[in-house]
């Protein structure tokens, strides 16, 4: 019994002594490393747009609610780009608590002078809810109007951007 215990203690001590030597041998193989000493920054752009009530508005990060009150006159709003990428278009939708909605737009960079006239003297174009083609640079905006068919309604305008409405993808070599 004593001999067995002594042998086991000897084996353990031997393992403790030998193991580090084996480990040292294994890690003695040479290797070489090369890499960039300064990290490389990689950043991404963003495509964002939102409906706002004025051209100077900051990003509301929410839908636009319009309450015309006792009127069925055209209500004006803007779809403004807040991302870092330019856009090729946007998708909008509108809901109303009652009745129907009709939409018009003026050229980018102009404003509505009246419900039938843009600030560049052109005539507003009728559009339907859905995808709209519009080349919107950062902070540029698309003037739009929405006309309710009934009074005392609440109109909610929502704008979305998908990746196909972001600027075209590019391949860069530098």
């Amino acid at each position: 019994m004593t001999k067995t215990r002594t042998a086991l203690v000897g084996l353990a001590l031997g393992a403790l002594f030998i193991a580090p030597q084996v480990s040292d041998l294994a890690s003695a193989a040479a290797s070489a490393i090369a890499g960039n000493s300064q990290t490389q920054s990689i950043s991404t752009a963003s495509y964002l747009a939102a409906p706002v009530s004025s051209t100077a508005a900051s990003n509301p990060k929410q839908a636009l609610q319009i309450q015309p009150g006792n009127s069925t006159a055209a209500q004006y709003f803007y779809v403004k780009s807040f991302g870092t990428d330019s856009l090729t278009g946007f998708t909008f939708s509108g809901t109303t608590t009652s009745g129907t909605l009709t939409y018009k737009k003026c050229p980018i960079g102009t404003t509505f002078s009246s419900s039938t006239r843009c600030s560049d003297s052109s005539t507003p174009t009728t559009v339907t809810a859905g995808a709209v083609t519009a080349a919107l640079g950062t902070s540029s905006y698309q003037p739009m109007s929405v006309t309710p068919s009934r009074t005392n309604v609440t109109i909610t305008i929502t704008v979305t951007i998908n990746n196909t409405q972001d600027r075209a993808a590019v391949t860069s070599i530098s």
Partner: protein
Amino acid sequence: MLATKLSSKVVKVAIFATAVTGGVTLISSSVFASLSATAFNTAGQSVSVGTLKLTQAASGQTGLTGGFTTAISAMAPGDQVNRFIDLTQAGTLNAASMTFKVADANTTTLTTDATNGLQVTVKECTVAYTATTGACSGTETTALAKGSANALLTDKALTLIAADLTGGASNVAHLKIVVDLPAGSEVTTNGTLPVGTVQGVSSSLTWTFTEAQRTATTTQG
């Protein structure tokens, strides 16, 4: 008379003791008297160790000098950025294998999202990539198939042209690192980015190549 006898005995004992001591001393001395011989090389034998040296630098070709230190900015989904790297094997030992990995010091979805984050491919050209256009006028091979940067956070084997792992000369592997941001299907609503977006983020990447020495050998002779 008695005194004379005692004196005679003492003398005898002394003589005996001296004889024994002398004998033992003689025997002991004879042990160290054995001969020995030594042989050695008179001129020192040179034993030298090879070297394994690996360096990376941006391609020196005009228009392709972005490398890993020039930032990549404002990538949009669907964009691809190619960076050209010269990997130089300047040691005397052959390398047995090469691995490649990336580390992100500023973790974002670019390296945590394996699907929508960055995708990386490594191509190798037998000659330097053409200036300005980045085309390969020689033979181009895929050293690393397209995979996510997330997967590349751990070492991945890089399949280089064998000659570019050979030591003894400044063998240069001409590499094109292709970085893609997948087109994805993100939709932003009313000026708000979706959760887990890859838009508007910035990562800080360190790209690392590691090579191991050739297999150790036992030489006879």
